[in-house]
């Protein structure tokens, strides 16, 4: 238990048993007891087995869509079915939430659906391995499922219009993969054991693979899909080892059992077990880093933008990439098994946030900027988890899901309208283009939210994280907080760089090369779809008319903007001290609370409580952070406004000046080339192992092993035969003499034995 004390030295840690921390021992102890009983009392609720439909509905819709593809359905039926299925799933999640309110329930519930993997060879513990299809439902589950299914439905509606040029086979493929994704994400979040989590984990990976590679005619898309899958697999291996170790130490991979054991050991103040138990969090974290694109496995996410934009919004921004955060939040007790596990998470998160933001500042592809911002924001979430505010991390996931989906869908609408144009240097003044008003202004909301300006949703969630990091003096968390503030400045800069470039300024645009579509789905000129005059080059831009979004796209953008605004309500209510924080309550009613001091301290208080006794820059922590964030946000926007709205030339001049400077000239080049991480990985792993190793081993296999050794052995009898070859001269008598000679030899041997008295 000393682990906890070292983890959160500045926090009241009566959990750790040393009540002298901050004099709030009794409260924390109550909290711990509450958490322990809450988690320990997981009860089976077979009457809730209808919750299985939340998983089944998307899967059925996926099957239906693939069947549509097989039968060449050429209308929007797949989209309608998918929307209906996802909408119903959302309705079911909502019903589940209303019928079973985790914030008022006595504990999490488990629902056993049916048996899955079950090897039982003895009665004793450790003599069975059981992983069933079962659900584990608590606050975290419902919190996650609400926005996963909700956003999934909205994005499916958006895609029904966005993908309409693909109606036919590929349309079915798209919605089939979306169905698979929702099924897998549901299993990941609702699954009651680690194997089911792994199923969802890989399932979302495969859906992501299928959707990144959706425009399979483009080799870059295929390569990006493969890269995403393989890099995720590296993380999955870590997850697999983590699952094994968990089974080994807890005798089960069921959440209910694990958390019960964890609560007990935390309450007893002893983790027990040997040092290998401490490896569990590290292996699990590798899986989380893979899925959530953290250092060192982050390079796949920007490439994943090759997929259709709704996919980027749903999978690669709002939901799937947050699975790593979910994993750590869900298994938070396991991350306390080693004192440095969470610090590792915090540092990785903080550094990723910073690194991705630096790259994001120098990209010209709108979607790539947002992709790096996603990596960066995920870094914040890991920072939050690492410094101990699971609430902050999960709340940031929640708010981020809305505004990032909004940003992606808005850029998707631009792309849709301008024939795939994504280069922020080639579109300008979008706010004045007819039909794009909603896009431009909802995008502004997204940008404001991403910049975390005061009283936006992200402000509440991000500042929770930064405040906790700032007030924690251990292990350089304060450094991470300052780094996070610097990142916030950069975030505001690159976000508004995009908005000012695209929506601000004079109206001018060039169409793209119809990146979505091209020849993949017969979108050629002779095929004549609505906006098929797409092979336009820059020269014939004057003949180009933007294709304004219609009802579904605009409607979803507006809904998401409203959602993004509303997502800030819990934070606002708490900020104004008007009542309990719904999000914090939900997170508190889950396994993410076990061993988290500042949450168990008081459900309503959240981070505010513990920030009392911490000061930043001589001020009250809250006030200080408010001011710092405001400065960072507006500072970034101001810089962006100067270089990208007021004096666009200046940006180019500055860049040239930097490049010309021999001392600092490498920096913009490195940033533009994403710090050469891809090249590094290629040089370190891909070429040596896969290409070089593969070819060399194949050569060895073919020419040395098979050609040399195996065929060499096979040649030995032939060589022996050649020795006696002269005997076989083809003449009958020759063979007869050989035969007689042989008989003679045998006889001579018999006689010899006989003479020796052997017979």
């Amino acid at each position, binding site marked *: 238990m000393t682990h906890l004390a070292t983890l959160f030295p500045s926090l009241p840690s009566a959990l750790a048993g040393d009540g002298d921390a901050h004099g709030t021992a009794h409260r924390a102890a109550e909290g711990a007891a509450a958490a322990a009983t809450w988690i320990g009392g997981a009860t089976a609720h077979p009457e809730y087995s209808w919750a299985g439909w939340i998983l089944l509905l998307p899967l059925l819709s996926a099957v239906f869509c693939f069947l549509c593809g097989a039968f060449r359905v050429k209308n929007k039926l797949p989209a309608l079915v998918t929307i209906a299925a996802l909408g119903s799933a959302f309705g079911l999640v909502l019903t589940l939430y209303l019928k079973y309110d985790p914030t008022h329930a006595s504990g999490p519930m488990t629902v056993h659906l049916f048996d899955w993997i079950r090897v039982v060879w003895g009665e004793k513990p450790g*003599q069975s391995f059981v992983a069933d299809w079962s659900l584990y439902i608590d606050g975290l589950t419902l919190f996650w499922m609400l926005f996963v299914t909700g956003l999934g439905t909205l994005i499916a509606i958006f895609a029904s219009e966005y993908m309409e040029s693909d109606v036919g086979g590929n349309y079915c493929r798209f919605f089939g993969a979306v169905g698979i994704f929702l099924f897998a994400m549901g299993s990941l979040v609702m699954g009651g054991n680690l194997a089911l989590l792994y199923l969802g984990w890989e399932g979302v990976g495969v859906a992501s693979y299928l959707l990144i590679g959706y425009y399979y005619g483009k080799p870059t898309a295929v390569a990006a899909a493969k890269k995403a899958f393989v890099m995720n697999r590296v993380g999955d291996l870590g997850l697999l080892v983590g699952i094994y170790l968990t089974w080994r130490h807890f005798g089960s991979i069921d959440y209910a059992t694990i958390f019960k054991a964890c609560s007990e050991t935390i309450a007893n103040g002893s983790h027990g077990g040997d040092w290998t138990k401490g490896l569990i969090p590290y292996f699990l974290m590798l899986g989380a880093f893979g899925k959530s694109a953290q250092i060192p496995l982050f390079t796949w996410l920007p490439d994943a933008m090759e997929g259709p934009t709704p996919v980027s919004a749903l999978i690669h921004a709002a939901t799937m990439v947050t699975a790593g955060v979910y994993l750590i939040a869900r298994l938070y007790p396991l991350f306390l098994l080693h004192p440095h596990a969470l610090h590792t998470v915090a540092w990785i998160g903080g550094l990723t946030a910073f690194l991705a933001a630096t790259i994001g500042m120098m990209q010209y592809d709108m979607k790539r900027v947002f992709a790096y911002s996603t990596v960066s924001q995920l870094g914040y979430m890991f920072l939050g988890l690492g410094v101990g505010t699971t609430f902050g991390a999960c709340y940031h996931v929640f708010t981020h899901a809305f505004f990032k989906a909004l940003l992606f869908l808005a850029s998707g609408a631009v792309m849709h309208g301008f024939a795939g144009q994504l280069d922020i240097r080639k579109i300008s003044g979008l706010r004045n283009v007819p039909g794009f008003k909603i896009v431009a202004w909802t995008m502004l909301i997204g940008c404001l939210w991403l910049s975390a300006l005061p009283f936006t949703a992200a402000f509440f969630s991000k500042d929770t994280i930064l405040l906790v990091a700032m007030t924690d003096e251990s292990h350089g968390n304060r450094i991470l907080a300052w780094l996070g503030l610097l990142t916030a400045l950069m975030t505001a800069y690159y976000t508004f760089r995009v908005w000012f470039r695209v929506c601000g300024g004079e109206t001018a645009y060039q169409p793209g090369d119809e990146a979505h579509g091209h020849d993949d789905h017969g979108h050629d000129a002779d095929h004549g779809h609505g906006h098929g005059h797409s092979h336009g080059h820059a020269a014939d831009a004057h003949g180009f008319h933007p294709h304004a979004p219609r009802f579904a796209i605009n409607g979803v953008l507006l809904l998401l903007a409203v959602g993004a605004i509303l997502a800030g309500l819990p934070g606002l209510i708490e900020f104004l001290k008007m009542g309990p924080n719904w999000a914090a309550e939900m997170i508190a009613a889950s396994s993410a609370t076990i061993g988290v001091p500042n949450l168990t301290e008081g459900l309503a208080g959240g981070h505010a409580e513990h920030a009392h006794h911490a000061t930043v820059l001589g001020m009250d922590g809250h006030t200080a952070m408010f001011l710092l964030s405001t400065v960072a946000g507006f500072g970034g926007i101001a810089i962006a406004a100067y270089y990208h709205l007021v004096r666009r030339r200046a940006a180019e001049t500055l860049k040239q000046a930097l490049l010309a400077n021999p001392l600092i000239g490498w920096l913009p080049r490195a940033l533009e080339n994403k710090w050469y991480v891809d090249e590094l990985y290629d040089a370190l792993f891909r070429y040596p192992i896969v290409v070089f190793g*593969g070819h060399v081993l194949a050569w060895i296999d073919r020419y040395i092993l098979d050609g040399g050794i195996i065929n060499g052995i096979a040649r030995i009898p032939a060589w022996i035969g050649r020795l006696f070859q002269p005997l076989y001269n083809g003449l009958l008598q020759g063979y007869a003499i050989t035969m007689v000679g042989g008989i003679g030899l045998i006889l001579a041997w018999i006689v010899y034995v006989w003479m020796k008295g052997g017979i």
Partner: protein
Amino acid sequence: MTLSAMLLWMLLAPLVGAVAIAVSPRHLAKHIGLASSLVVLFLSIVFAVQFPAWTTGAFVPDTNVFPDGVVSLTGVTFTLGVDSVSLLLILLTTFLTPLALWGSYTAIEGREREFYGWFLTLLSAMLLAFMARDVIAFYVGYEFTIVPMLFLIAIFGGDDRKYASLKFFVFTFVGSVITLAALVYVASKSAEATKVWDFSLSALQAHAKTLSPKEQFWVFVALMVGFCVKVPFFPVHTWLPLAHTQAPTAGSVILAGTLLKLGTYGVYRIALPMAPNAAVETVGFLAILCVIAVVAISLVCCAQTDMKKLVAYSSVAHMGVCMLGMLSLNPLGMNGSILYMINHGLSTGALFLCIGFMYERYHTKDMDQLSGLAKVMPIWAFFVVFFTMTSVGLPGLNGFVSEFLCLMGAFAATTHTDSGFPGLLGPKWMIVAGVGSLIFGAVYMLYMVGRVVWGPLKAPGHGDDHGHGAVAAVGHAGGHGAGQGAASGAGSSSTTAAGPKHDDSAAGGHGHRLPTDLSAREIAILAPLAVICLVIGIHPYPLLDVITPSTKATLAGYPEAVRDFDATRESRGELATAPALPADAPTTPAATDASTALGSNLGVIAR
């Protein structure tokens, strides 16, 4: 019909079919072939339904099907009996064979009678090997599979078929002769002791335990030589890629689906229970071979350009995982291993079928010449991606369950565990095999899919991707279905847009007009495989449940053998770890104290 009569008829029905094919007209051959394999499938299903020993691990009926004296050469009997594992493999065989035969309807042109006749003979031989309880009967079945396969490769194979069939024959034959020698040696020793020749497996296994350790060791090694060739283990795998590449599609399906399983089945049924004390001494070495197979061969896969060769090499890697699970010597890994045999048969067999269907259309398996076929063959592409996903072990599909259990088994196979089944592998094996299987496995399979299924369209006879003529025509036919049905679309593409260079492509070379995308027959072949893959992936519990009793029986002597071996090693000072706890020390996994079993186990990593 009694159970033993049913087994006998399962052996005879294909032979009857083969004879019928021999005497009937050529055009009926395929129908008779399919019909008799369906009869066998039906019989096996009826047998499985009536099978009484699913959960007991017993062999049923385990009787000599002929009255005493009819077939009785000095102790050789025709005893047939199956337990749950044998029966599952029999079902796999009888299930795959009709599909493979049906899949050959258009692929085999000329000499059909030989093809279908030999195929049925092959079926009978495989079934005999899985049913026999007498080692000589087993050996006859095991060995006789080589002969039909030789003809299938040598007559119906690709360009290099002579060399491939020769290599296949010599390799597997030499290996299994050594196995036979070991079996006869044990039988002769047993006859010396009891004065009665008895080749029954149970008698031999009982007697083998009384041999001296040195004898046991060599018996085990000799047995493994033959089985390793068939599995195939790492250094003796080189026949497999060649044989697979040259074999006709159906031959590849059965080769990967069932013939390789004869090797693993032999290890499971004969070698491992025969000499536990010898086995534990070699487990470490064999595991090295497995891991090399998984990692190195996975990398070799990345360098292949022939699709069939890639899948064939992937079989070597996959069987490495399968064997690693078996060598973990605990129910977890061994259940996974048995399930792996079935799953690998299904998914790899299906992949070979997919490649075969594509080959019939384009007459090439070279990945350099093919690209972006998803555009013209979307349904085919669906199946390829699906079976690729089962192959790389996507959870929810069958491959995952077995791979997961094999790796978990290898991880749990440490000398001191409270599972009751100590093993000799441990985490490092699992991690290395996991790297190969999970990561490199994904790399090469996705490499194949990325090259062939995705990408810009390129196929012989479909023009290169720069020309819009042929591509557009076919693209509309396949992707959009503009030609009102695939058949007419393909027809138009090969007549109008394609021009003279299309004479042997696109619509099938000789006589059969194949549609651009899969025909109904081909879909009907692949769909059941896909459904079964999905069902096993989602609900494997019934299978795992019936496998467990059998694996426990196979593992019967092992906990003791491992402990003995461990004790010997320790006394020799080979184990540098902390003093070990007794294996059955009362440790509660939930809240163990310090230095439990895993400490010493993971010490292995540190070493």
